[in-house]
């Protein structure tokens, strides 16, 4: 019983998070400006971390936790670096 409930919830959560990643990817492709793309990339990172945690619950293994932590770390560093880069204005807008 509980396995069925949890299985359905995990499946629904995975579908929703995949759709969320799709939306973020859409914004990443559309832009229109560089800051929109960086924001979309940041959202993509967060959604990926959430998806990994759901994978962890599905497989019953805590190893996915480390992966989620690393994705969150990388997402922060990448976004901060890209934002800094935008601020200095060395990216020429097309």
């Amino acid at each position, binding site marked *: 019983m509980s396995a069925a409930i*949890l299985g359905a919830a995990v499946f629904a959560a995975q579908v929703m998070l995949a759709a969320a990643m799709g939306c973020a990817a859409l914004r990443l492709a559309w832009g229109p400006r560089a800051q929109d793309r960086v924001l979309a990339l940041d959202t993509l990172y967060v959604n990926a971390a*959430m998806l990994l945690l759901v994978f962890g619950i599905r497989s019953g293994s805590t190893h996915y*936790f480390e992966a989620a932590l690393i994705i969150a770390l990388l997402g922060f560093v990448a976004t901060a670096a890209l934002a800094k880069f935008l601020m200095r204005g060395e990216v020429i807008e097309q």
Partner: protein
Amino acid sequence: MSGAEDLPLWAALPVAALLIAGAALGLIGSIGLVRLRDFYERVHAPTLATTLGIGFILLASMLHFSVLQSRPVLHELLITAFVVITTPVTLMVLARAALTRDRREGEPNVPPAGTGRQP
């Protein structure tokens, strides 16, 4: 679904509810990223995912593994603390970068730099 059979129903229900709520908030945030009109509005959208969205999923994960392993599994708190501290920083830096760029390009709809006047 390894291990899920061992999860009692009283734990499975809140875990399922938290998972769905968290994923739904993540999805709504990303929909906002697509739907809202300009960059400064879109900056608000991912905060849904990075506050309650990931918070609910981390709570679900903590509850799930704590009940399964019958000991408190709290390392998810690390991700919580990390996300809570870093998200405002990235969004602030990004908003400031966008503002700087818009000012440099003479965008009319952004406020000018502070006047530096004393009150």
